[in-house]
C-alpha cells in the first residue's frame, strides 16, 4: 500500500468521478439491491474516497459484491456515479494482485451452456484487466 | 521548465452588450473564473450597436481576433437588436471568409447575464483558437503592425 493518497487520486482519475459533488443524501445506498451483502455501501465508497480512506475499501470484499447494476448511478441526483468509483476501486485491487488474470483458455472448463454471455463479459470486466 | 518569453499572445477584442454579455463577463469575474488577459472587453448597449466597421477597425489596428457577444436570441433587452446583429455578423463573417480571411478570427456568442462560467470558457476557447491561427496577417494594416513591432 505504497501511497494511499496517490491511489485515491488515481481512482478519481480513472473513474472520472468528482466525489465532491456528493451532497450526502444516501439515495445510492437506498437504491442498492445488494445492500445486505456489502460491508461498505455506495455512499461510503464516495465518502471514503473523497477523504482518501482507501485501506478499508481495498481490503473489503464489498468491491466484488457490487452488482454493477448502476442503480446508484441512475438515482444519484448529483451525478456522482458511485458504481464507477466502486469499479475503479475494484480495478485498483486487481491491479495490485499482480498477474493473476483469468485467461480465455481457462474459460471452456467453467462454461455452462445456460450461462448468459453477459455474465462472461461481466466476469472479464471484474476479474481481469 | 523554461517557458519561452516570445510566445504569441494574440490581441482579442470582445464586444459585449451591456445587458447580458457584459453582465455575464462581470459574473465570470465575481466567480473568479480565469480567462486570458488578452481579451479586452468593449461595452456597447446592444449587440446591434456593433458596426462591421468596428470589427474591421480592430483588425486594422492589430487585433488578432474579434468576438461579439450578445443576449441569447429572444432575450434582447431591446427585443430585437440581437436578431439584426445575428444577420449582420453572419453576413460579415461569411464575407470575410470569402475574401480568404481566416474565419477562426471572428466569432459570435450569445452569453446571458447568468452565464459567467460560459463566458470564461468561451473566451478560453476563442483565445486558444486564435493563438493556434497565429498573428493576423491577412486583414491588418501593416503600417500599424510595423509601428507595434518597432517598439
Amino acid at each position, binding site marked *: 500500500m505504497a501511497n494511499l493518497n496517490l491511489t485515491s487520486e488515481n481512482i478519481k482519475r480513472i473513474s472520472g468521478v468528482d466525489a465532491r459533488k456528493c451532497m450526502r443524501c444516501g439515495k445510492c445506498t437506498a437504491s442498492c439491491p445488494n445492500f445486505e451483502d456489502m460491508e461498505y455501501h455506495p455512499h461510503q465508497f464516495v465518502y471514503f474516497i473523497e477523504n482518501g480512506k482507501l485501506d478499508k475499501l481495498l481490503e473489503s470484499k464489498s468491491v466484488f459484491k457490487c452488482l454493477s447494476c448502476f442503480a446508484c448511478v441512475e438515482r444519484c441526483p448529483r451525478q456522482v456515479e458511485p458504481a464507477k468509483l466502486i469499479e475503479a476501486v475494484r480495478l485498483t485491487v486487481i491491479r495490485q494482485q499482480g498477474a493473476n488474470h483469468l485467461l480465455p483458455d481457462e474459460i471452456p472448463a467453467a462454461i455452462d451452456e445456460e450461462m448468459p454471455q453477459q455474465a462472461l463479459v461481466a466476469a472479464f470486466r471484474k476479474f481481469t484487466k | 521548465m523554461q517557458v519561452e518569453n516570445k510566445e504569441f499572445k494574440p490581441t482579442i477584442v470582445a464586444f459585449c452588450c451591456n445587458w447580458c454579455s457584459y453582465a455575464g463577463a462581470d459574473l465570470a469575474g465575481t466567480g473568479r473564473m480565469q480567462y486570458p488577459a488578452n481579451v479586452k472587453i468593449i461595452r456597447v448597449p446592444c449587440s446591434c450597436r456593433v458596426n462591421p466597421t468596428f470589427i474591421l477597425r480592430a483588425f486594422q*489596428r*492589430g487585433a488578432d481576433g474579434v468576438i461579439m457577444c450578445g443576449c441569447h436570441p429572444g432575450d434582447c433587452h431591446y427585443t430585437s437588436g440581437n436578431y439584426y446583429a445575428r444577420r449582420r455578423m453572419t453576413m460579415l463573417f461569411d464575407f470575410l471568409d470569402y475574401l480568404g480571411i481566416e474565419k477562426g478570427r471572428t466569432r459570435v456568442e450569445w452569453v446571458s447575464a447568468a452565464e459567467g462560467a460560459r463566458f470564461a470558457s468561451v473566451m478560453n476557447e476563442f483565445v486558444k483558437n486564435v493563438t493556434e491561427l497565429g498573428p493576423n496577417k491577412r486583414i491588418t*494594416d501593416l*503600417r*500599424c503592425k510595423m*509601428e*507595434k513591432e518597432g*517598439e
Partner: protein
Amino acid sequence: MFKIKKNSLNKLYAAIAEAQTLYIPCNVNGKPNFAVWGEGADVDLASLKTVKSAKEVFFPQCEDIVSFKTKGKEITVIDCRKESEDFVVFGVRACDAKSFEILDKVFLSDPVDTFYKTKREHGTVITLACSRPEESCFCSAFGIDCAEPSGDVATYFSGEYLYWSPKTEKGLNLTNSLKNLLEIANDKDNLALENEQKNIREITKKLPLYGLDLSKWGADDLLEKFNSEKWQELSSACLGCGACTFVCPTCQCYDVRDFDKGNGVQRYRCWDSCMYNDFTMMAHGTPRPTQMQRFRQRFMHKLVYFPSNNGGEFSCVGCGRCVEKCPINMNIVKVIKAFGGEGK
C-alpha cells in the same frame, strides 16, 4: 543606334535589373501596368497603354512624407525623405515621356519637390515608339511624334529587333553597361526603321482624332470660356469619380493625409482628383461646390490655366487614357470639340 533580338529581351531586362530596379509594363492580374521586373514577370510591351501612366514611377500614388512617433505625451518627428536609388523605367511611350516634361514644370520649379526631384535624377527613361496607335490617341495634336519618342534612350520595334538609341548622357551610360548584349545597327537596319516610322506616321494621320484643333485653347479668352454655358451640359453626366485623373499622365494634384497608426502618425501624400467633391476642401467648405465647377476646373486647368502659366504648353499629352477609361465616356476631346475645336 544599337539593336537586340526580340527573343533576347529577357536577358536585357535581367542585365538592367541586376544593377538597378527596372520598371516595365507587365500584365499583373490581367491588366498592363508598370511593375518592378523580376524573373518570370509577364512583360507586356505590346499593349499600347498601361492603365496607370508612367508618372507613377516618379510620382507614386501614395508616398510617405514624414512620420510622427508618440509615446505618452512626447512626439518624435521622423524624416521620411531619402535619396532615391538608381532605377530604370522601360517602355515609356512618347506621350508619357512628354508628360514628364510637364510634371517637371510643376515639381521642379520653385519650390522644388524633393521627393520628385530625387527620383527624376536617379531614374533613366527608356522610351518605346508606338507601332500601332489606337483610336483614342491624339498626341499629334500636342506635337508629339509617337514614332520618335524622347527619353534617355529611345527604342523601336521593327522586324525581329528592338532598336536602341541612346539620347542623353544617362542613356549612354546605361548603354555602355549593356554593351555585351547590344549589337550595333547597320544602315539596312536604319533604313528599315525609317520605313517603319513612316508607316506609323501614316497611320497616325488616319486616326479619328487626328487634327484635333486646339487653336481655340490656350491662355486667351479665359473668362469667356470660364463663363460658358456649355460646361453645364458637358458635365451633366459626370459621375465625379477620379478615373480620368488617376490614369492621366499629367495630373499632378495630391492631397496630404495623416494616418493614425496608434503609436504615431504617418503623414503621406496621395493623388487627388479635382473631380472629387472634397477637392481643396477648406475649413469654410469647398470653393467648387457643384460637379460642373469641378468638371470645368479639370479642363480649364489643362487647356487654359496651365498654358497661361507655362508659355502656352498644354497640360495634356493626348495619350487618350481618359477617353478609354471614363465610365460615361465624357472626355477632354469632347470638351475641346464642344468649344469649336472640331478635328480634321
